[in-house]
Structures are given as structure tokens and as C-alpha cells.
């Protein structure tokens, strides 16, 4: 019976042979893969600032900037509440092909819009639908300090107003006025540092004793998406009635840790639909942004953008 010891040989050989195989997956994408992205903003039209993009995804090695954008797509947006159709046209702007509405139809809050994209040579209809969130209004100076040179401003040019890092949360909370609406909102906030990278930039909170970035951080700083330059956060916040100022407001009062450096910032605050929210929070969000038969997202938001300079101390005293 000692030959029983050879029982183990056959499965062992099979396992060892299988160990010689390639333990990695094959390429995921085959042929042309298209991405469509579009963010509708309540109260605005689909213009050059927020157009629809139709791009042909490319391998990084084969990246050719001019071939990335699809210029001959047929792009249509339908207001499902009114059945109005907007035929979008391609426009070359800032070296990009942007699909815009030449008639400047305004996007209405609470309306549902359907996007349809036909790309010559691509047999599938790319489509998506989004319902625009209720109208909200960005409130830069919630407490009404109204101090010249301090706080957030809605324009992006010098001179920037200032806010000290120590008082930014207590004096200038991020706030959206929501009209008659009270309840839960999908909130997207982005704090983007407008300064160019420099080793003289200064951290608002020293990191293990380091007060300034070193040169190794330059690529991190300019990397796309979230990073030390651009902090985004998402969540389900509520709008509730306030006495002073009177009205219904969504407010965020703990956000200063998103200011990594002292300097100029662009702060965006949106109430967003489920498509954009899902696109932002999901791993591989391009699968979950509501686009059918392509990657990307078709979402809608309400809100706005404001600007300030985060400083240690105010340079002017009123």
C-alpha cells in the first residue's frame, strides 16, 4: 500500500503546471471606447463653460490630443417635461471640441433631461437622463459680515478678498440657500488652490514638521483629479430653516482642513443629481454616471463658485 504516496503526485503536477500560467487578466477594453460627459447647471445654458464632451478614449501611449475629441457626433438634449429638443453643435474652443446649445436654452431646475448621442460608425445609441436639482443659491457671506476685502467673492480676479485660516469655518461657512426646500441634498464641494506650484507655498498645517512642499511634490500637485491641490468632498447634507438670516439653508462648518496651502482658492458648492453624485463617489465612476453604451456621466447641479485668499492674518484691518 505504500504506493499510496504517489496519489499526491498527479494533483501536485497539475497545480505546479497551473503555476506556470499568467496570473493576470487580459486587456479590458477592445476597439473604440467612447466617453460622454456633461454637467447641466440649473439656470444656465449648455455653453462653452459647461458643454457636453464626446471623446474617444485612447491608450496613453497613443494619445493624440486632436484625435481625442469626436467632432462629428449628433448630440441632442430633450427636456422631457416640455418635450423641447436642443440640437447641440460642435464648437472649437480652448483647443477642445465642445458641444453647445447655440440657442442658449436655459436648464430648468426640477426638469428631467435626456441626452442622446449618435457617433458615425458606432452602432449603439448613447443616451442618459438626469433630473436637475431644485434651485439653490450660493451664499458667500452667511453671517452678513460685509467687511470690505474679507470673505468670499463671486469673481475670479484681483484683488481677491481674504479669510484667515483660523476663522474660515466660524466666520464663513459654506452655505446654500435652498428657497422653500428643506430636506436632504446630494452635496458636492471642491476647494481648488489657484496658486502655481512653488516651494515657497506654505502648508496651513505643518506635516510632520514640514512647513513647505519640496520639489518632489510638483507632479502630485499638478496631477489630475483629487490631490493636494484639489480637495473634493461629497455627502448627504440637509437644508433646514434658519432664523438669522431667515430662510432655508444647507451649511458646512467643518471644512478648513481642505485648505492645504495658504493662497488663492476657488470654492465650488453644488447640490447635485444622483448621476453626478454616483460618478464622483463610485470607484470607477465612469461606469456609474448614468451613461448607457459609453463611459462617463450626464449629471446636473445647482449652486455656484466663489473665490478667496486664505491667509494667516488679514493684510488690511477695517
Amino acid at each position, binding site marked *: *500500500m505504500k504506493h*499510496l*504516496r504517489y*496519489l*499526491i503526485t498527479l494533483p*501536485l503536477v497539475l*497545480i*505546479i503546471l*497551473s*503555476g506556470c500560467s499568467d*496570473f*493576470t*487578466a487580459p*486587456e*479590458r*477594453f*477592445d476597439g473604440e*471606447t467612447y*466617453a460622454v*460627459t456633461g454637467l447641466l447647471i440649473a439656470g444656465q445654458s449648455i455653453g462653452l463653460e*459647461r458643454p457636453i*464632451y464626446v471623446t474617444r*478614449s485612447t*491608450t*496613453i501611449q497613443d*494619445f493624440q*490630443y486632436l484625435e*481625442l*475629441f469626436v467632432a462629428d457626433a449628433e448630440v441632442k438634449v430633450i427636456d422631457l417635461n416640455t418635450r423641447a429638443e436642443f440640437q447641440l453643435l460642435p464648437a472649437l474652443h480652448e483647443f477642445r471640441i465642445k458641444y453647445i446649445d447655440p440657442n442658449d436654452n436655459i436648464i430648468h431646475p426640477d426638469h428631467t433631461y435626456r441626452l442622446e448621442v449618435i457617433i458615425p460608425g458606432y452602432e449603439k445609441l448613447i443616451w442618459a437622463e438626469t433630473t436637475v436639482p431644485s434651485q439653490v443659491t450660493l451664499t458667500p457671506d452667511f453671517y452678513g459680515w460685509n467687511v470690505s476685502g474679507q470673505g468670499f467673492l463671486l469673481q475670479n480676479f484681483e484683488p481677491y478678498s481674504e479669510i484667515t485660516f483660523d476663522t474660515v*469655518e*466660524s466666520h464663513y461657512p459654506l452655505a446654500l440657500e435652498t428657497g422653500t426646500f428643506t430636506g*436632504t441634498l446630494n452635496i458636492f464641494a471642491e476647494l481648488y488652490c489657484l496658486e502655481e506650484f512653488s516651494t515657497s507655498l506654505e502648508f*496651513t*498645517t505643518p506635516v*510632520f514638521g514640514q512647513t513647505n512642499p519640496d520639489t518632489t511634490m510638483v*507632479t*502630485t500637485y*499638478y*496631477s*489630475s*483629479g483629487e490631490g493636494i491641490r484639489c480637495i473634493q468632498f461629497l*455627502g*448627504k*447634507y*440637509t437644508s*433646514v430653516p434658519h432664523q438669522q438670516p431667515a430662510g432655508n439653508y444647507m*451649511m*458646512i*462648518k*467643518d471644512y*478648513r*482642513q481642505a*485648505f492645504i496651502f495658504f493662497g488663492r482658492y476657488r470654492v465650488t458648492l453644488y447640490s447635485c443629481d444622483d448621476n453626478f453624485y*454616483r460618478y464622483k*463617489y463610485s*470607484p*470607477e465612476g*465612469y*461606469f456609474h454616471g448614468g451613461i448607457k453604451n459609453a*463611459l462617463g456621466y450626464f449629471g446636473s447641479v445647482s449652486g455656484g463658485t466663489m473665490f478667496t485668499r486664505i491667509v494667516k492674518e488679514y493684510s488690511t484691518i477695517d
Partner: protein
Amino acid sequence: MNKLSILIVATWLALCIQVLTAATVSGFVTRVENAEPLQYVNVRIVETRVGMQTNKKGYYVLNISRPGSYTLEASIIGFTTNRIPFRINSEDENLTLDIELEKTGVELQRIVVTGESEEDNIYSSPQIRIGTIRQKTEDIQKIVAVVEADVFRSVLALPGVTPISDFSASLYVRGGSPDQNLILLDDIDVYNPNHFGGIFSTFNTDAVESVELIKGGYPAKFGGRLSSVLDVTNRQGNRNYHQGVARLSAISSSATLEGPWRIGNQRGSYMASFRRTYLELMQQFVDLPDYYFYDGHVKLNWDLDSRNKFSASAYFGKDALVFDFGSELALDWGNRTFTKQWVHLFNPTLFSHFIIAGSRFESNFTVRGEEVSNSFTHRNGIDDLSTKGMLSWKPNNQHQLDFGYDIKWNRTILKMDTDSQYDPNALPDVDVTSLLSAAYVQDVWDVNDLWTLQPGLRLSWYKTLTMNLPSPPDASYLNLEPRISLRRKLDVAENIYVNYGRYCQYLTLMSMGISTPFDIWFPLDGSLKPGISDHYTLGYKNELSRNFGFDIELYYKTYRNLLEYNVATGFTWDNANGQLKDTFHSGKGYTYGADFMLRNDWYGFEGFIGYTISKTQRRMENTNLDPETLEPRYFYPKYDRSHQINIIENFNITENTGRQFLGGDLKFGLSFTYTTGQPNQKPERIYFDGDDFQIIYSYSDRERLPDYMRLDISTKLEFFRSWGSIEPCFEIVNVFDRKNVSFRNYNISPDLETGQLTLISRDSPQFPFMPFIGINVKW
């Protein structure tokens, strides 16, 4: 079917009790030097060649069918063999013979082979131990360690156990994830047994008697997890005299005291061990977060009489971290356990072990902003109250019947709160209780001198008791978990065996993939089915010579109803309408492979060489989607390693050459690990999303990171003095400073000069070249 079942059980019982009128010889085997029980000692009657191994409490019982004179022999590697002649006068005599064993070469401080196999040098072991490796305190402390010896780190050096990163002591055993390991400390579950964000395990090695890892196919008395069992036993303490150990390392100190106690005619022993880090003291010199951890083990034993022994043990540990990142972040987390045990002999053939135990893990996380006092709080934890009864009946020398029960009450809490205007419905507020009951029976049947059959059955019943959320449906699951092993002895020290077992799991872990204090154990609700795994094992063991032993185990495991935390849940939590299925991706998987282990004790070199070849794949819903069909695809998880080599060797120069250095005993240690690189996702394409160029990623296992390789060495010089010994030690981790990679991240960055896009990959490093010094004092 019922009649057939009754017939089978009746036949089995008849086989078991066919020789009930035998004499017995029984007792406890202990160490001479401290009277602590010795587990798994081979005890046999020389004349009849009938034998067994002592159980975890050091107990043995053997049946003798005829009166006469016999010799009892007790042996285990590292101890002198003890032979005791005795006489049986009648067939109903029950003789008690306690045995003491002395360490071999005590004067030379010789220690046994690291990573000892359970069936080393045995004559007749009834139990078929599948995938079992046991390590004693000395084994663990001999392995070269980062900063200090660690239970999990020593287990990670074994074949079949995969390290995922230098910064994590989490155990990935034969294709299983850490949540599938049953980790027991004195028979009670420890839920998140990690310090320092997973770098260290919670157990202080000086307080640990032994660690037993069962890599699969575990016996019927264990259940509730899909992959493995890590059974940690606290030391009982020296019953003969008081002694202590103190250790001083770069980041922590520890002290252990033990000894006997006596009140009147009652006696027993105690053991207490405490450890604390002092990293926060270095803040004067380096800007570090305010962090420390401590832990303690306490055990008290009371030997009431020869048939009753009681013990009570407790563990407590805590980590605390405060960090300023613009807002102040404060975390603390820790485990507490207690176990009360009663060992009772109903009669020499019926051994029992009853346990009442509890375990708690909790973590707290607070962010304090400038404007609000506590801008965010997070509290989670799990409570466990358990009672177990484990009985072992040995009616004759052919059968050993193990049976018992296991009742476990769990409560999970997860609560988040904020002063901000965050939707309270989107912040988890969970309070769930559940009950898991199980009964088991297992027979070890020595069919003849060559064949052993070990059938077992575990019946588990799980039920949710209370849930504070309105939507999750109640769960009630009943499962039969059959286990069976068959072994054929081929020679005195050579055997081959096969095993099958089914395992169920009713708790799941909400984890980000690496161990953190925020890992949350959830009892299943009715929206999710329990995880089920089938294990198939084929093994071969051969003690090649006195110097070498060789094991191979081939295994195949299937998994159903696997659960992985859906990280998007943080943005979609819904107390009012949510169910547990919204929080987890479910799926299936399989793993197969082979573990090889060559153990050596050769010319003073003690250790082992281990090699594992394996393949693990999972298919989880909404994960790793095929872009065409949007269906999930099988993938190699992060912890899959095709090939793994471990070499652990120790060499005591003084013991083997007789030469001392500077008047002390010199010892060297070496630990080498090689693994195939971990699977990783890589960028495949790019697109423009209106703001930035974004990466479209490949399948999650498109590439492998560079292979992992690390060599650690240590040297210790032990000086013996009249009061004890003092041992300075010096260790180097990653001798060749190899740049092992733990994670690789990709970003696209525009080249400001050319306008072209550049793909940037950034590797997170693992342990660099690191020297450590420390000192151990024993008295």
C-alpha cells in the same frame, strides 16, 4: 432517511462502546521546571503500542484490557522521554499517573525546531490534524522580528499564510481574507486583534503559551469562519517558583511575572504581563502624532483537586492617537476579553472543559474642528458573550468521541454623529444583536494499525435577535457542516490523508481591505445568506530522518456567498430603508494550491523552508465589470500570491560549537521571504471629463507589482548570571534595502512645457533597511 440516520448512529455507538470494561491509566503531563501542562505529548503503553497525544490541558487517558505490568512512555521533541513502569491489577482499575517531562539540554538553553509540525515523531496519534502548525513562545521569539517578536508576524512566516504588506499583520490564509479567520485567545474570539494600524498583533508573546494555526479542514469543534483557525493560549504561569521577564526595545517595554500561589491547602498559579509603547516621548525630538498602545494579559489558575481545575484569564489592550491636520483627530480602539474555564473529569475516560467568556472590541473616532466642539464622531464595536462545553470521551483505544456545544451572543454597534447639517438618516445608527448556537460531534476511529477515520458533524443555528433599523429582515439559518478525514499510515513516521469539510460564517466584516480600527463586524440580516466554504485537502507527511521532516498539503476550497464591503456605502447609507445587502457586494470564489514544508534540525541549524504555490480568484457583483456586458469578472484579489518561499533558520553557535563570545551565548537568526508581486490595476485608457483628463482602469488584476523579497537577520548574546540572564539583541530588517512595493498609484500629469500628458506611477514603499537594538532580562 430518519431510520437510516438512527441506524448509522446506533451502529456507531455500538462500535464505540464495544470495550467498556477496560482498566485505564490517565493523568496530566507537565513540565518539570514550572509544572505547566504540556500539550500534544505522545503518550503510549510500550507493551501494547497503544498511544495518544495529550490534549490542550495536558490530559491523556489510555485503556488497558488485561491486568499486568506495563510501561508508560511520554515523549515530545525538546524534552527527555519519560518511562514509568506501572501495574494493572484488575480490569476495572483506574490508575492515575501524572508525568513530568524535563527539557533536553536545559543547561545549554536548547530550544526546539521553529514551526513544529503536530505529528513529529509520534507513534500513535489518534487525531488527524489537517494543515496544523503549532508554535510555542520560544518559536515565536526566535523569529527575526520588526522591533519585537509578534504572534502574527511569526504566523505570517509559515507556508500558506500570505503577508499583504509589511505594514499589516493581517493573515491571509490559503486564499482566505482576514475576516475568515477565527482568532481565539483562551477560547474566546478576538475580533480586531491589531495594534498600530495593523503593524502588530495585540498579543504579547511573553504571555502566550502557544499558537496553533489550522489552515483549513479544521475539526468539528471549530466553526463560524470560512478559512482558518488561530488558537492562542495564554500561559498558566510557573507553579513551582516566581520568575519574570523584562524587555526593552526601541519603542516599547514589557514585563511579565508569574509564579505559584497557595492559600491553605489550595494552590494554583498566576501570570501577568504588561506592555506599553512610548513613541510619544520621542515627540520632543521628532514631529510625530501623539500615539501609544498598551496591552495586558492576566491569568489565574486554581487546581481544586485532581478532577477539577479552574482558571480565569483576561486581556485588555488599547491604542490611542491624536493628530492635528487642521482639525484635531482623536482615535482610540482596543480589545478586552475574559475567560473562565472549568476542567472537570467525570471519570478518567470522560474529560470535559466548560467555558464562559466574553470579548469586546470598540473604536472611537472624533474630529474636532475650529467652529464646532465635536464636528464628527464615530463609534463602533462588537460584544461577544459565549459559553462552550467541550467533552471528550474515550471509551476504548479505538475511539475518541469529541462532542460539545457553543452558544454565542453578539451585539454590534455602529453610530456616527456630527454637529454639521448632515442628514442623520445617512449616518449609520446600528444596534444589532444575534445568537449563534452550535453542537458538534466527532469521532476519531483507529480502524486498525494503519487506517484512521475521523468523521464529524457540526450543526449551527444562527438567528438575529434585535435590530434597531426598520428595514432589514430577520435572519434565521440552520446549517449542517459535515467534516471527514481519512488517514493511512505508510510507515512509522509516514502517512497520507484526505479531508473534506464544510464551513459556514454568519458574521461579516465591513473593512476597506486592510485592517483598520474602523473595521466593523456585522451579524448577517435576512437580506444576506451565510458564507459557505468547502475544503478539500490531500496531505502527505514524512519524517525523513531525525534531522528532517517533510510535509505537503494540496488544497482546494470553494466559496459561496462571499461578502466584500462596498466602499460606496459611505455615500448612500440609509437608516430608514437600507439593508445589509446594500453595504456588501456578494460573490463567489475558489482557491487551490500546495504548501510544502521541509523542517530541519541539522548540525545546529533549526528551522524550515516553506514553499507555497497557489491560485485564488473571486467574482463579486458590481466589481471588476466587463465594459461590454457590465457583468462582473473573476479576478485575483490583492492577496493572491502565485509563489511564496519562506526560510526561517536559527543557529546557536555556543550550543553547537561550545564556544562563548564575551562570556555569553551567541545566537544567529535569519528570515527570508519571497512572494510573487500582488495583482494591481493599471491605466488602460484616458478620457476627458470636462475638467481633467481621467484614467480608465484595466481589470483589477491586469498587472503584478514587482516581486517581494526581504531578508532579516538577528544576533543575540545571552549572559547568564546567578539571578537570571541578560540578553542584548541586534536585528536588521531588509538587509539589502530592497525597494518592495506595497501599493502603486497612477496619475496623469500634463507636461507644462510640451502640453503632452505624462502617466506618473507612484510606489508606496515597504520596510526599508532598519537596524534595531533591544535588551531582554530574565530572572
